[in-house]
């Protein structure tokens, strides 16, 4: 779809809508035909007709291209318009765009997934991919942080993943006495997680500050920067590296990213003026 006509959105009808948290919901589409093939980490531009477009990561199963899934937070004009759509309504979709998580490179070793808040959505396809080929990976670990227990995404799946051979540690920033899990910041989980730095590929997605601290925590555990990948978020417009809205110094996040290795951005990740 994107290679032949990167500019024209394809209308797709919402087949299912699931509320995840107070402000976050998941839409499922059935594109038909061969479906929409994507690699974990890629995104689509979703067009709310008459309102505008927003870049949204694909959060579904890459082994099931017949089903397209996006988890969206109602946070801006476009996503607010999408949030008001019911099952049967249409949006325009173009994509998929961008780089992918290095799942293939992680095969034969350990994979460490570090997600914060909505950052779990772009990483969920990695988890599906790992589960589909579980024997290809040694240790598989998910460290997931959220603001509070009520803001955790995919809570049923977290349990299913745990019982399917993925170690899942969940931490929240704030909780009442009824929360039995840990309370704190997700980078603190990195301090305690069992990992072999020489055979670990880490994939980190969440708010940029959380990613910066996570990258530092991984470095402190001895994981080389080229084995750590993050997903950058910038304001994307064209999604094909032409308009420059998403430029991050020499990197066009839409085309060269959103997934980049930490060594590639090591000199600019902590710089406030970029």
């Amino acid at each position: 779809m994107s290679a032949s006509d990167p500019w024209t959105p394809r209308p797709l009808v919402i087949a299912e809508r699931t509320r995840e948290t107070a402000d976050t919901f998941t839409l499922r589409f059935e594109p038909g035909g061969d479906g929409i093939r994507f690699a974990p980490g890629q995104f689509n531009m979703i067009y709310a007709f008459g309102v505008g477009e927003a870049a949204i990561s694909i959060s579904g199963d890459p082994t099931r291209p017949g089903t397209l899934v996006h988890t969206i937070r109602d946070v801006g004009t476009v996503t607010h318009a999408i949030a008001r759509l019911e099952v049967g309504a249409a949006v325009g979709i173009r994509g998929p765009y961008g780089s992918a998580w290095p799942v293939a490179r992680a095969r034969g070793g350990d994979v460490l997934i570090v997600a914060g808040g909505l950052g779990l959505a772009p990483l969920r396809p990695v988890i599906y991919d790992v589960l589909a080929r579980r024997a290809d990976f040694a240790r598989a670990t998910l460290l997931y942080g959220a603001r509070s227990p009520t803001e955790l995404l995919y809570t049923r799946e977290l349990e299913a993943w745990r019982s399917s051979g993925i170690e899942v540690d969940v931490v929240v920033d704030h909780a009442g006495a009824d929360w039995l899990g840990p309370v704190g910041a997700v980078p603190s989980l990195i301090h305690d997680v069992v990992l072999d730095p020489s055979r670990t590929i880490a994939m980190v997605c969440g708010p940029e500050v959380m990613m910066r601290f996570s990258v530092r925590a991984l470095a402190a555990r001895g994981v080389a920067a080229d084995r750590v990948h993050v997903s950058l978020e910038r304001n994307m417009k064209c999604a094909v590296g032409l308009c420059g809205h998403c430029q991050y110094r020499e990197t066009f996040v839409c085309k060269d990213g959103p997934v980049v290795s930490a060594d590639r951005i090591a000199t600019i990740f902590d710089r406030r003026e970029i």
Partner: protein
Amino acid sequence: MEGLERILREHDFLKDLSLEQARFLVSCARNLHYATGDFLLHEGTDATAFYLLRRGRVALEIHVPGRGTVEMESLGPGDVLGLSWFIPPYREQLDARAVEPVVAIAFDCQCLRDKLDADHDLGYALARRLFEHAYHRLERVRLQRLDLYGVQ
């Protein structure tokens, strides 16, 4: 006692302590077990114990009128619990409740302070570790305070 010395030197906080230093400290230490729901510290009470957590998780809580109990942070194996014993007036600032069965080394704080006053090399070594621990805890609290996952 020999077992307790070994346990002290294996804990993250006291790793690399010399055998001689561990022997010096061991008379202040006890290995204790707590059931889920037991309190290890109570806000407002004298800070009499300093813990090295070995197993299980402890919630640091504060009671907020109108909101109930709020968990500020949780600590687990390898962490230390209780910093107030080191700083006058030696009174606990938070409640600490076991949310799982907990095994911890508990130091008698007066005994520990006396030992550190008697051996300044050891006092410096432990003060440095406490500072490092407090620094990392502060870093975690800063991240929590940023409310990273809220709407930007």
